[in-house]
């Protein structure tokens, strides 16, 4: 979360030590895609939380250019030299990072795959949400609210990213289940708020009657809502990510629902599995988090800031979807 100006100055003065040192304990290298998406911030907070509870240390590797493939490849090469005890890994691109994972495998460092399922390489385990069911369930919720009919717009994310491909597939399958609902446009917003806003503005011009908007992430959903408000068009909007901002919007009724993608849990559980592997404790080969559609009725657990939450215990984690 952002800091207040005052604490910012204090922090600046006390130096930027991002990782607190723990007395003894394993080093877990955590790879995330970028510094700007709140989802990955939640992942990092979750990872730090789990490590602290289990007395281990985390090191974060984030590309300086958001989602940069060459940079993540370089970071993997650097990490292989540095040899942390284990790695928790989100590939910047699920296909292009395979050589990187193979390098990690070659160095015999145990690695846990989180968030996006990598197209190759050996992993101890996969922890992620199933983007397809996330898209499907959230879209189903909206369509049910509309009584199964209406004019629907899809705002896609970044073309080619796995999360986008699966979520949009989920949206489309939900639409197929509801023959009364008509897809009038599907345009990319690149997961960006401003872009989704302007795309939505323009779509409203060519399609005055819009009943539902399926946005592939919360930032775009918020952008779409701005556009709809500005044009005085009433439509139901859903997003995905379950961010604090989305929860606030759900509370106020502006956003219908948001599919929970729970980065915090992924960070927690992924790191827990990594540490357990090192300590020769039993783990499972994958934990696919069940989709939760956050709505006006069940938002309470999501209404807190990520930093204030605590990681689930191992048994609780298994119940979330372990196989």
């Amino acid at each position: 979360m952002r800091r207040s100006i005052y604490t910012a100055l204090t922090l600046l003065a006390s130096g930027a030590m991002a990782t607190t040192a723990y007395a003894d304990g394993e080093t877990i290298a955590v790879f995330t895609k970028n510094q700007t998406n709140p989802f990955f911030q939640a992942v990092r907070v979750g990872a730090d939380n789990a490590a602290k509870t289990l007395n281990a240390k985390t090191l974060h590797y984030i590309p300086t250019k958001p989602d940069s493939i060459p940079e993540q490849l370089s970071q993997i090469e650097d990490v292989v030299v540095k040899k942390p005890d284990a790695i928790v890994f989100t590939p910047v691109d699920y296909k292009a990072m395979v050589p990187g994972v193979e390098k990690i495998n070659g160095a015999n460092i145990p690695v846990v795959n989180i968030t996006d399922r990598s197209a190759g390489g050996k992993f101890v385990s996969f922890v992620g949400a199933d983007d397809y069911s996330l898209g499907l369930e959230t879209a189903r919720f909206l369509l049910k609210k509309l009584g199964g009919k209406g004019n629907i717009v899809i705002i896609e994310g970044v073309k080619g990213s796995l999360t986008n491909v699966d979520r949009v597939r989920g949206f489309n399958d939900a639409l197929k289940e509801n023959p009364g609902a008509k897809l009038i446009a599907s345009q990319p917003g690149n997961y960006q708020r401003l872009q989704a806003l302007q795309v939505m503005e323009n779509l409203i011009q060519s399609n005055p009657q819009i009943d539902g908007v399926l946005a592939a992430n919360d930032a775009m959903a918020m952008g779409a809502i701005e556009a709809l408000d500005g044009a005085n068009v009433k439509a139901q909007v859903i997003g995905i990510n379950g961010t604090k901002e989305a929860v606030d919007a759900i509370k106020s009724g502006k956003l219908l629902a948001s599919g929970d993608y729970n980065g915090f849990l992924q960070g927690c559980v992924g790191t827990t599995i990594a540490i357990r592997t090192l300590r020769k404790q039993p783990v499972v080969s994958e934990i696919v988090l069940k989709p939760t559609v956050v709505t006006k009725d069940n938002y309470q657990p999501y209404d807190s800031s990520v930093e204030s939450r605590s990681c689930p215990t191992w048994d609780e984690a298994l119940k979330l979807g372990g196989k």
Partner: protein
Amino acid sequence: MTDVTKPALASPRAFVSEDVIQVFYRLLAALVICVVLSLLSGSFLHLANILNVLRQASLMFFIASGLTLVVLTAGLDLSVGANVAISACLAGTVIHQTGSPTLGVLTGLVAGGVIGLLNGVMVTALRIPSFIATYGMLWVLNGLTYWYMAGGIVHGFPPGFRQIGSGYLFGLPTPVYLLGAFLAIGTIFAQRTVWGQQIYAIGANPVAARLSGIPVTRRLIMVYVVSGIMAGLASIIFLARLNSAEADIGESLTLPAIAAVLIGGTSLFGGVGTMFGTFVGALILTLVLNGMNLLQVNANWQPLVTGVIVVLAVWLDMKMRRRT
């Protein structure tokens, strides 16, 4: 490239009329684009769409206007996008913590201005080429913003404040009035004040300008400060429009702003160009993007089309200048 024999303050009046012709041609181009779009898409001529386009173009113009002054001095400011991002984040936080939109606006403007000042100092006192100085600044600002925002968002602002970005005043989007105001101020400044003329002179021939007594350093610093303040202003509008600020909003803002300046007829070599031209450049870019959206053109084509337009516009500009 710098020929001392070229006149320093070469008849400003001549520049003005030549520039007027250039702007006229561009307005014509914009008109042609409008006609084409209205033929291709039934929704283009809707009042709401026109207003949207104006609003979108205004946002681009705020950033591009300060940039125009910098480019007039044969410089470049690559840090404007990052400037908008950090100023928006700072302003947003201030509004949240103090509850005062006025303080927030001041913060945004001051932050933008300070960044501009630093850029200006690097270019003048430290003698670093503007391309590199502002590129370095871009990275530094990004680092600061990432650290400060820590992956978070600042969102949710008072409705009164939000009117600045998303509201309407007598039927026109609020930013359009600001657009008009700054267009007028900018044009008067550039064409009719001594300082403005000096900026053109510095761009046309820095050596001669210095020799004729123009305080080049001070003017250059001023130009970068203005560019920074305009970025700060843009950040406020963005904040009000999007009702939020995040660390990465600046990434996609810089190149389109530069493109708008170039399409508008301002030369990278300095000394040539107008504020109004930049506005028309922003308008043309926005119209094209709007058209592509309305016609549901595959997003893959957008960078290609933008690139071609920039080259075309500059080429046509050069051909015509050579004739006159």
